[in-house]
Structures are given as C-alpha cells and as structure tokens.
C-alpha cells in the first residue's frame, strides 16, 4: 500500500513539474479503453444473467427432485394405505368366520387365549401374501388379547419382516419372523429373527392406543377413513425403525379387536426416496410430521447420500427462514436448506385429517449456498485477471509503440536527427527531414549575413578614417573657445537630448533618428533647437563638425 502511495505521489510530483509524459498518457488511454470494454462486457453478461451463479439451475433441479419425490411418496403411501385397508377387511372377514366357527364374539376373544394361535394361523396367508407382493419392511397383526395372563401390556400377534424391502415374489422374498407363535413360523417355513419374541409388548407404544381409541370413538366411520400413519417408531425388540400404517380390525358387530398394518422401514424409505442428486452428493429426502415451528424429524425418515441416518436423527428441525425459493432449517447444531412440500396422507373425513406431513429435499446449508453461488468466484477472478492482463498489455504495447517516437525526440534533442533513418512512422521521418532542411537553410543564411557584416565593417572603417582626416583638416578653422564651450556644455543636455546628440555623433540622419528615438519631426526640431542653444552652435553642420572634432580628440587621447 505504501508502495502504491509512493508511486502515486511521485507521479503527481512529476506531472505537476513537467506535465504528463506521452508514455503515461498513452498507457492511461489504453487502460481506460480496455477496462471500459471489459466492464461493458461484464455488465452485458450480468444483464443476460451470465454471472457464474447457478441459482436458477439449483432451483430448477430441486423443484424437479421435489416434484418427483412427492409424487412417488403420494403414490406409494396411497397404495400402501389401500393395501392395508384391504388386508384389514380380509382379516376382519376371516376373523368373523373364525368367531362364528368357535361360538364366540370378537369382544370375547381376550377370554380365549387358547384360540389365539389358531386365529393368527388363519391370517398367515393374508400376511404372507401382502408381504410378498408389496414394497414394505414388514406386515403385522396385533390383537387386543394375550396368552400371557400375567402381563397387562402383552398382546398376541404376528410381525413378518422382509430383509430386502424392495423384493417381491417375482424376485424371491425371504420372510423373517419377528413376533408371533413359533409354531406358526415353522409351519410356514419362516425363519425366526434373533430378536424374536412370542408376543408384542405395547407399553408406551402410542400408535396402539391412538388407533384403537379413535376407531372405538368413530364406530360409523369407514375403515378407509380410519387408517393412521405413525411417525418413525422402533417397535420394542425390532432392530429397524420405520413408519407404521395401522388399520383397525373391526368385526361385523362393530367391535374393534386389534389392528393390522404395513411397515415402511428405514431401508425401504431410503431405497425408494433417495434423490437422484445429480451434482449434489449430499442431498437427501426428509419426510416427517409437521411440528409447530418446523419439521418433526425426530419422527421422520430420511433418504439420501448424507452422513446422517434416520435412525440416529433424534432432533426436530425448525424453520429459520422461508421464501419462495428455498426453505432454511436448523436443528442438532446443523443448518439445512432446500425445498419442501406438504404431503396429504389422509382423505377428507378422516379423524387424522388435521395431521400434516411434509416432504423436503434438503442439503447442508453451506453446500446449497455454494451451489447457488456456482462458479461466480471463478467468474470474478477471470474478470480481474483479464483486467490485470489488459493493464500489463497496455503498458507493454504503449512502451513498444512509443519507443521510436521517444528515440526520434531524443535525436531532435541532440540535433542528430539527420542521422536517424530507421523510424517506422512517416510523419516523424517527414519532421526530421523538415528539421534537417531548415538547419541547412539557416546555415546558409548565417554565412551570407556574416559576409555582409564583414563588408559593412570594412566600409565603416573606411568612413571613420575619412572622418578623422576631415577632422584634422578642419581643426585649424575651428574657434577654440566655441569648441571649448561646446564640450563644456555637453553635460547640460537632458538624457533625451544627449541620446539624440549621440545618434548625431554616430552619423545617423534625421530620418533615422526619428525612427530610432521613436519621436516625430516636431519633437526632433524641439530637441535640436535646445541642443543648438545649449551647445552654442547655429547649425546642424556646425554641430556635426564639433562632434567629429570631439570624437577625433577622444580617439587621439586614447592613443
């Protein structure tokens, strides 16, 4: 910085002293032209939206991704809901037939634990068929009854798990047994999972009470309006979390005797809803219930190539900023940005209609920020580099362009322009030739004048000699007193009179004196009259005689 200040100060000082040099002026000119061109070019690019920023591309990409994902979610969750309802209707129908066959009502089921395994056995084929033919993490049935009279929270049921959630019967499905009577698994050739337990423990499982209570409170509502989607939940003993579609089981007499449903597991969600990503490797999908101030991601699932997994995301995201382009969220010490849209899981008339869900395509905020910024930094660097290169080029070109001019000027300065023959500019060559011709004419004129001077000097010397001879001849005729008075009275003359007298002494004519003294004729006559009077002479002739005599004396005196 100091160096720059110093340079500017030096330049100003020099400019004030001698004016700006041609070189600087040319550099300035070039720089101004190139900088103006680059700035105009940059402004034009900016005007047409070419600034290196990718905001439009990012926006469009995320909008497309969100539209695809939300459509897929709406389709798949809709299909699963319908599948769950159909399964519940089939199970209820089979159960009603079972109750009639065994002479009991649905309400009396809990009093007949010995019938539970048989009843569940009746439903195995429906469960197996559903799990085989559908993308899901598993299917389950949960009855409001238990074989374990000692436990208040134990409930009989079956939970079939699929380790490859996107496999269907066409590709071969391996079903595992998470809950249910072991014999049913063996009868159907199903392998028990390590976490197998015979019955469910519904303690603290909110979905159970919510679905059962709601179904009981809405006896007239159709099953197609009573299904419920739980937030992310990990059933006790299950190694995997997921959303559970829960449909109440209602017998013909209206008794709600259990629930059945389908699991959208963490891995199923991941395999179905991972965004394509494109150039965004850290993009991910979130689906979650809506909270008061954001997304209830602690109950949501995520899918995508991000470092988090749904299983360990136990915090909610609050919306920090939202405008038409992007939604910004924060939670768990991280900030995310992206696009979101609401998801409608329930039809009109559902008791759960008021529960809102959202799907979002997100990525870490700094990554989105950088993506939006695109390569504008490179763009700016390019412009700056272009500017610097232009300045460098201006300096170089102007220096190269001016070198012959400066050389020519230097040759003029040293009067060696006559020898300068290699100047590439014709104007400068013409100037040099002109100056050389002028010099030659001047030399000739000087020689001529010198000759004339020598001739005049010779004539002058001859005249002086003649005057001296005349003075010597006239000397005896001159009145010595008058001449004495003449010389004495010279000092009485005024400066103007003296200057005119001196001109007479030099041999000037009256006409020449008028011009040399810059006076008119009357003034000369006036001065002549005064000079005659003061010197005691009566005519110009006498004056000139006395003047010549005086000069003769002065010359002789000097000798």
């Amino acid at each position, binding site marked *: 910085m100091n*160096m*720059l200040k*110093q*340079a500017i100060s*030096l*330049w100003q*000082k*020099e400019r004030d002293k001698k004016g700006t040099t041609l070189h600087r002026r040319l550099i300035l000119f070039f720089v101004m032209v190139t900088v103006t061109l680059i700035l105009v070019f940059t402004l034009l690019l900016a005007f047409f939206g070419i600034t290196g920023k990718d905001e439009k591309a990012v926006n469009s990409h995320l909008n497309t991704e969100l539209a695809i994902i939300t459509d897929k979610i709406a389709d798949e969750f809709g299909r699963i809901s319908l599948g769950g309802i159909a399964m519940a209707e089939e199970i209820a129908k089979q159960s009603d037939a079972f109750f009639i066959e065994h002479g009991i009502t649905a309400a009396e089921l809990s009093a007949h*634990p010995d019938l539970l*395994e048989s009843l569940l056995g009746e439903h195995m084929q429906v469960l197996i068929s559903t799990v085989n033919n559908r993308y899901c993490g598993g299917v389950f049935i949960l009855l409001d009854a*238990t*074989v*374990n009279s000692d*436990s208040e929270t*134990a409930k009989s049921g079956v939970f079939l798990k699929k*380790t*490859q959630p996107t496999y269907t019967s*066409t*590709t*071969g499905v*391996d079903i595992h047994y998470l809950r249910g*009577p*072991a*014999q049913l*698994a*063996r009868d159907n*050739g199903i*392998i*028990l*999972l*390590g*976490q*197998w*337990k*015979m*019955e469910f423990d519904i303690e603290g499982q909110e979905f159970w009470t919510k679905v059962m209570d709601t179904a009981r409170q809405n006896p007239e509502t159709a099953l197609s309006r009573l299904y419920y989607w739980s937030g992310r939940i990990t059933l006790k003993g299950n*190694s*995997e979390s997921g959303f559970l579609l829960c449909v109440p089981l209602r017998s013909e007499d209206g008794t709600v005797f259990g629930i059945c449903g389908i699991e959208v597991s963490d*891995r199923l969600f*991941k*395999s179905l809803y*991972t965004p394509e990503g494109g*150039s965004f*490797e*850290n993009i991910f999908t979130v689906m979650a219930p809506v909270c008061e101030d954001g997304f209830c991601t602690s109950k949501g699932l995520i899918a995508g*190539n*991000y*470092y*988090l*997994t749904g*299983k*360990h995301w136990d915090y909610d995201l609050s919306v920090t900023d939202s405008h038409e382009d992007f939604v910004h969220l924060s939670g768990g010490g991280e900030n995310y940005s992206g696009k979101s849209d609401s998801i409608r899981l329930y039809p009109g008339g559902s008791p759960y209609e008021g529960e809102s869900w959202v799907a979002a395509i997100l990525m870490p905020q700094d*990554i989105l920020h*950088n993506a939006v910024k695109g390569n504008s930094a490179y763009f700016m*660097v390019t412009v700056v*580099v272009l500017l*610097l290169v232009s300045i*460098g080029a201006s*300096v170089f070109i102007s220096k190269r362009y001016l070198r012959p001019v400066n050389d020519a000027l230097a040759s003029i300065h040293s009067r060696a322009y006559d020898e300068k023959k290699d100047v590439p500019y014709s104007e400068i060559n013409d100037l040099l030739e002109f100056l050389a011709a002028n010099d030659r004419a001047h030399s000739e004129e000087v020689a001529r004048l010198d000759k004339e001077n020598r001739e005049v000097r010779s004539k002058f010397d001859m005249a002086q000699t003649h005057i001296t001879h005349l003075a010597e001849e006239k000397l005896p005729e001159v009145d010595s007193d008058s001449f004495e008075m003449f010389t004495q009275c010279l000092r009485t003359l005024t400066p103007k009179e003296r200057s005119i007298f001196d001109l007479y002494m030099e041999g000037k004519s009256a006409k020449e004196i008028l011009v040399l003294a810059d006076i008119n004729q009357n003034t000369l006559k006036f001065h002549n009259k005064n000079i005659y009077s003061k010197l005691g002479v009566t005519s110009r002739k006498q004056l000139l005689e006395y003047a010549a005599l005086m000069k003769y004396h002065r010359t002789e005196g000097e000798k």
Partner: protein
Amino acid sequence: MGSNQKEKITMKKLFCLILVLIITLGTFAGCSDSPLDPKEPVTLTMWHNYGGDMQATMDLLIDQFNSTVGKGKGIVINVTAISSSSELNKSLTMIVNDDPGAPEIPDIFTGYPKIGIQFQEKGLLANLDTYFTEKELDAYIDAFVEEGRIGDGGLYVFPIAKSTEVLYVNQTLFDKFAAETGASADKLSTFEGIAELSAMYYEWSGGKQFFGSDAWFNFAEVGMVQLGGSIFEGEALTLESDKFEHIFDTVYKPAVEGGIAVYDGYSSDLSKTGDLVCSTGSSAGILFYGDTITYADGTVENVEYSILPYPVFEGGTKTALQRGGGLMVAKSDEKKEYAAAEFIKWLTASEQNMKFVGETGYLPVTKKAFEKDMDSHLETLEDERIIKMLTSVLSMYDEYAFFSAPTYANLDANSSAFEEEFKKILNDDRAKYSNGETVSAEDALAQIRKK
C-alpha cells in the same frame, strides 16, 4: 538516485507484486494423493449379514464412520441390504449369474470366499492388494489374509471378523435331563456321545429333539478332517470313504428316530422354544440364542447356555472350522475402490474391530486385537454370553487345529447340494420311520453317495 529512477523501481515492484498475486491465485490447488474430495463425497452401497442383534453395532459403526472419517474424506456408506448370509448368498448368486431380476451389485458386500471366487473369476471384484501396503497387511493375522486370497492370488476377500463353530448347550434343560437320567456331560465332547444322548433324551422327554447342526456340510467336512480324511477330491466332493460312512451312521439313527433335529432354519430358533438342548453353530450366533425359552402358553423361562468346544469324532483330532467371510469390493473406478479400501481399513482397525467383536461374539482379525487387546477387552465386556463365548473360543485356539475349505468356483453349489440332499434323505426317512416303514442307513448312505 534521481526521482525518475525511484519511480521506475517503485512501478517495477508493484508490477512484480501483482504478478505474484496472479500466479498464487492461478496455481491454488490441492496436493493430496487421495482421489477423494470431501465436497463431493463418494457414496458406496453396502450389503452385510450382520442383522438381528448385531445390526445395532454395525449401524453404529457405520454411522460413526460416516460422521467422522467418512465426512472428512468424502465417503458415505449407504447400507442397502441387511440379510442372513444365506440370503445374501442367494442375491449375490443371482448377480454373478446375471439372472433376470438380479439386483445391481453393491459396492461393498460381505460374503465367503466360495462366493468371492465366482465374482473374481468374472472379473467383478477389486484386488485389495492395490490399496493396502505390505506393512498395513502385516497388521492382520496371516491365515485370515491368506484365506481371502483367491483365484489369481490377489486379495479379494478382506477379513473383517472371524468365527469358528462351537457347541451351544442349554445348560438348564441339560441339567434337568442329566439329573433324572444320569446323562454325563462328558459325552458332549464327541459326536458319538451326542448321538447317544440324543436317543436317551428323545426317550426321556417323550419325543423331543436333543441336538441339531446349523450346517450339516460343515459337520461332514470337519468330521472328515478330524478323522484324518477329506471330503474334497480336487474340485468335487467324495463321500465314498469309510470315514464318511462313520460320520453318516453316527447321526442317521437318532435323526430318523427323532433325537436329532434336521431343520431348515437355524438351531437357535428351536432353542428359543425349548425344542432343542444343544447344537453346533457359528460362535458368532451367540446373540441369536437369547437367554430365555418362550413356551406356547406365553410363559417365559430364564435359561443358561454353556459354550463348549466343537465336538470331535472318537479317535479324531481336535479340529474345528475357521468361519467368517470378509468384505468384498466390486470392481469400479479408482475413486470408489479407494474409498471402499479406506472404509475397510477403518472398520478393521483394532479399535473398531474390538468394538464389533465385543458386541457380536466374532473374533478380531488384527494381530494386535487378537494377541494383545483381547484379554484386557474381556474384562470390560458386560454381556455374559459374549464373555463366555470368547473365553471358550480362545481356549479352542490353544487346543484345536483350524480348517478352511479349499476355495473353488463350484464349492458353494457342492455344499448347498450336499446340505439339501442330506436333510432331505434324513427327513424322508424320518417320515417313513414315523409311518412305520422300514428304513436303513445303508440305503440312505447309498442314496446320498449317488446324488
């Protein structure tokens, strides 16, 4: 010095400064050898067989990797399938055979060398020798690394965790049985003794099964080695020897009569409902056994399991199977292969390896973990089952020889065919026996030899 000269020097310095600035900006670039970029992470899909109770441990490790080392280096591990090894084998076989509807090959997957060889022969696996230095490989137990060298001798199956086979005994049930019948626990050390106890137990329990094996092929191949033979002849199986006949005869009678379970699933399934007293299986299966029996009426009984060394045929040498597959990396671009190798290095490093071992019952694979860290690690473990397992297995490593099956392309098909046929013959004869039909071990043996 004139003012003109000073000015020129100042201008030159300024020009140099700008030039240096341009060069610095222009040449601003990274100098790392890694082909990875944290800003553009590589996502690797992974299939593994560490499900059930082991899943939480593996999930935790993968999450830990993703959020620390992976995040720093630009690697994301995305687990897309968690299945049992038999299921994974099925899917992997579909891939390697290019079957219709076969899934896309994952970037990293667990599996045995017998599956790996099929992928390697089709050029689908990355040779991990490229990504590990000799010094790095020297940290792993040589035999485990050697087991992963298949086909052209390259390292295609990287050891992650190893296991052997042991005898699980429901001590609670056995004690009741022994108390009433005088059955000796010593008999559990030989297969002949177990067969004898199976018959006794069947009688005593009123028709319940005593013993089962998770893998009858392993039972046969290890039995042959114990008896000084081999079930392999080149790249095929040979069942013609007397030794095999002895092995077959040992289990045939109790299996047909009902004392030995010939079950399609895992023995732990039967153990959970008290339908089996003891079984041979992978030492890593400890978590599948649980510590309770659930009866059909919903009552749950707490039980205790003992882990005994793998039984030996009478007169045979103490030999057990060295089990446990490894991680394979699909052949891909350098970036993905490099990222996979980075993940494997992290996952098998002593610290992570011991964490995995401590929660699952597997054996570690690095020399440091196996030879130094194990003893101190045992003291920090809380799960009694794991402590019992590791103690028993470590004692086996002092006394037993360990056998690994030779790796050839048809090994998987041969072993699967044997397993299927062995079970079918025993189950068919069992059904016939239950119906009062006559069955004979000789005919059954001839049948399996023929198949």
